[in-house]
């Protein structure tokens, strides 16, 4: 199972900067394991970032995104204490949602 997404969010001059590190193998299905067998395809394909209830970023990933995907962006608004939630779904049907507060 995947571990929690590490999220940092801080607001400065009315702009909130969000950085996150998701925990996922992002297997493309092309890589071979130690025994020479192909490792089955398994990667995050959809992510959504919300500020409180509002979507501030939606993304679709393919298998060329690195293992343990990193993503950073910023949006106008946000205040210390507001909630930032990162939700993802992968090709295996797993999903998870993690939150942090803006500092």
């Amino acid at each position, binding site marked *: 199972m995947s571990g929690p997404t590490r999220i940092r969010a801080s607001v400065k001059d009315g702009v909130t900067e969000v950085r996150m590190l998701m925990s996922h193998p992002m297997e493309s299905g*092309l890589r071979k394991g130690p025994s020479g067998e192909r490792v089955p395809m398994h990667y995050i394909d959809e992510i959504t970032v919300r500020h409180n209830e509002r979507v501030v970023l939606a993304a679709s990933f*393919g*298998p*060329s995104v690195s293992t343990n995907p990193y993503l950073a*962006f910023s*949006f106008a608004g946000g205040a210390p204490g507001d909630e930032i939630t990162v939700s993802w779904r992968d090709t295996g049907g797993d999903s998870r949602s993690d939150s942090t507060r803006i500092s």
Partner: protein
Amino acid sequence: MRRQRRRMLKTVGGLGAVGLLPLRVGDAGAAAATPDLPGFDTRSIDEVIAALGAGRPMDSAEIRITAPPVAEDGRTVSIGVASGLPGTDRIVLLVEKNPVKVVASYTLPDGTAPAIQTRVKMNETSNVYAVVRAGGEFYVARREVRVIVGGCGL
């Protein structure tokens, strides 16, 4: 070798069926040529971009791609895309020489800055493309990134 390639093609072909990216990576053109391998990017980068619904985007100097000129490790290459085009609401990142060229597509609602940073796998030295939709029009920029050690099968 050839056999192996077929297998690989099939695997990647499956991506289309899973409905990868709302980008229709594998439809019409490629499917017609190779019916059992709908998603594999044997197509040129121009064809892949056209299949995103972007047609033939205009080159724009307003799109800035930041990347190391030389990447030591192709498994994780830091890439940033920033658009100076007003009304930017979508950014798509592509790596020309990867088995799956479309890396990710970002939808940016009002209020979100038209800039993202991420890390991507790169199989070998390649052009990185950023396709941007702004005011309903598509624009493109490219930048070459040299890779020392490829993302080995990715």
